[in-house]
C-alpha cells in the first residue's frame, strides 16, 4: 500500500471525527488528553510510517514506560490544576459515579500507570528479552478487556439503539415513498 493510501486511511476517520465533533465546549482535561495523545500519535505515525531510519536505538525498551508515566503524570497534574479528572475521559462518562468516586478512580489509574511504567523498566533491564516481550503481551491483554468493555457498554448500544434504528427508519421511509410512486 502506498504512503498516500496509508495516510488517507488514518486521515479519513479523523476528518469524519472532526466534522461530526460535538459542538459544545470541551472540558480542559479533555483538551489536555487530546493534545498529549495527538503528540504521542504523531510520534507513532512518524516512526512507524514515515521515518525511514526507524526509531532511535534502545528506545523500544522505554516506549511503554514513556506512555505509562506520561498518563500517570497527567492523572496527577490535571486534577491539581482543577481541570477535571482525565479518568472520566478515558473510561467514559457512561457510568454515573460521583466526583469523589472519580477522584479515587483517577488516583488508582495514576498509581497503576506509575507501577506499570516502573515494572516495564525493571523487566527490560533485569529479565531476558523473551520474558520482557512476554510481559508486554500480558499487559496488552488489558487492552483487549478494555475493548470488550467498550464494545458491550458503548458500541453495541450505539449501533443497535441509534445507528440500526435510524437506518431502519430511513429504509421504511424510502419504502413508503417508493410505494406511493407505483
Amino acid at each position, binding site marked *: 500500500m502506498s504512503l498516500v493510501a496509508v495516510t488517507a486511511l488514518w486521515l479519513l*476517520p479523523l476528518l469524519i*471525527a472532526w466534522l461530526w465533533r460535538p459542538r459544545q465546549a470541551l472540558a480542559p482535561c479533555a483538551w489536555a488528553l487530546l493534545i498529549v495523545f495527538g503528540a504521542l500519535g504523531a510520534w*507513532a505515525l512518524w516512526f512507524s510510517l514515515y521515518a525511514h531510519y526507524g526509531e532511535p536505538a534502545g528506545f523500544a525498551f522505554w*516506549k511503554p514506560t514513556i506512555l505509562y508515566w506520561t498518563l500517570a503524570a497527567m492523572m496527577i497534574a490535571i486534577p491539581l490544576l482543577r481541570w477535571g479528572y482525565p479518568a472520566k475521559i478515558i473510561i467514559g462518562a*457512561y457510568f454515573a459515579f460521583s466526583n469523589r468516586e472519580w477522584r479515587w478512580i483517577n488516583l488508582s489509574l495514576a498509581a497503576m500507570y506509575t507501577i506499570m511504567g516502573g515494572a516495564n523498566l525493571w523487566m527490560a533491564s533485569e529479565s531476558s528479552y523473551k520474558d520482557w516481550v512476554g510481559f*508486554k503481551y500480558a499487559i*496488552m491483554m488489558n*487492552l483487549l478487556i478494555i475493548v470488550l468493555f467498550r464494545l458491550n457498554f458503548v458500541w453495541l*448500544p*450505539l449501533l443497535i439503539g441509534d445507528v440500526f434504528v435510524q437506518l431502519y427508519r430511513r429504509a421504511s421511509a424510502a419504502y413508503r415513498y417508493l410505494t406511493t410512486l407505483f
Partner: protein
Amino acid sequence: MSSVERKPEHVVQLVWAGGRSEQVTLTATGKSGGAGEIFSIDEKPGFVAKIYHATTSPDHLAKYRHKIQWMVDYQPALPQVPAEYQHVVQLAWPEALILRQSRFVGFAMRKIAFDHTLELDYLLNRRQAANEGFDADYGKLVTVSFNLASLINCLHQKRIAIVDLKPMNVKVYKASLYVSILDCDGFHIATDEFSSDAPQVTPEYLAPEFQEKSVAHPEAQDRFALATIIFRLLNYGIHPFSGVAADRSNYPPELAGRIEQGLYPYGKAAHTRVRKVPASVHEAFPDGLRELFDRAFASSGYSRPSAQEWIDALSVYANKQSGQMSPCDKGHLRFSGRPCPTCLRDALIQGAEVRRRSFLARLQAAPGRTLKYVQKTLRQTHSSPFQASLAQARLNALQLAPPAPISTRNAIALEILWISGLLIVYWWTR
C-alpha cells in the same frame, strides 16, 4: 512410432495346468488390493494377472504357490450356464501360475468384464443400482440370490469355502444376473489331497461363534454370510443385525457386537432387546424364506440353512413359470399371496419424506418469521402481550448504558477518537 519399451519385470512366464508354459507381457491396470496388484496380459486379453506385492514374505509366497498350484490343477465344476452366456466368468479362479525368472510371483485368472457387471454392493441400494444401469426388482434380486447360492453350493460340494464372503467380493452380470466371485486365492480348501486356511474375514458378515476367533467351520461361516447377503438383497440393504435398541444400555454400537450377542430383530418371534428398523419390509417375505432367515440368524453352526436349502427355497421364485412371483396393483413384482414389499417400502419412506418436507418448510419460513418479529419489535406493534413483554425485556437488556446526551454522529466522532487513542496506546506498548 517405436513400440513401447517394456520393463524386464513385466515379462513373465505363464504355466498352465499340465505344465504348458508361455512368455507374456503384463501391463499395469492401476488396480491394487491387499495382497497384490492386477495387470492385464497383452497376449491374453481374456485373462488378467494378479501379482503379489513385492513385500510378501518368502514364507507366504511359498504357501500361495502351493495353494495356487492346487487350484490350477483342480478347477471346480460350476453351475451350467446357457450357451449365450458362455462369456460369464463365475469364479475368478486361478488358471495359470505366473513365474518371473523361475520365481513364483502370482497367477492368471479369467477377466471379468467390469463393463457388463456391477458390484453386489450396489444392489443393496436401488438408487445406486439404477445409476449403474440396473433396474432392480424383486424378480431379479431373487434370481441373483439363487445364482449366488448355486455357485456357493458347487464350491461347498468340493469342500471349498469362501469364508470372506461379502457383497464387495461378488460381481453381478447386469443382463444375465449370473454372479461372479472374486479373490478366489483367499478361499478355504479342505480336500483329501490338499488343505489351506483362509485368515481373511469381515466382521459384518462373520458368524457369531467366530467373532474374534478363528473360523473353525468355514462352511458354517459361508452359510451365515450367504443368508446375510440374501437378507440384505431382499430387504433394501438392511443388515439382519441392524435394529433399534429397546433399551439403550448394553446395545453394541458395532454390527459385529450385535451379531455376537444374537440381536436379530426380524424373526417371526420378536426379540426382547432390539426392535426392527422401521423401513424394513421383511414381513412381506414368504414364510418359507422367513423361517430360513430365522434359522440362519438365531441358530449356530451347521443347523443354519445350507446353500442347497437356499437353492430349493429360491428356485420357485427365480423361475418365471412357477407363478410364485406376481405383479401387484402398481406393477411391482412381489411374492404371490404376500403384501408388495416395494409398495410397503414406498409407504414407509413417503411418511418419512412428508415429515422431512414439513420440517424443511418450517425451516425455510423461519427467516421470514424472524424478520417480522424484528419489525414488530422495532415498531412496537406486537399483538401478543407475551411477545410484547419479551421484546421489551430484550430492548431493555440492550440499553444497559444510559443514553448519551449527544447525537449519534457526535457519539461516532468520539468513538473514532477513542479508537485512535487505543491504537496509539497499542503502538507505544507493543
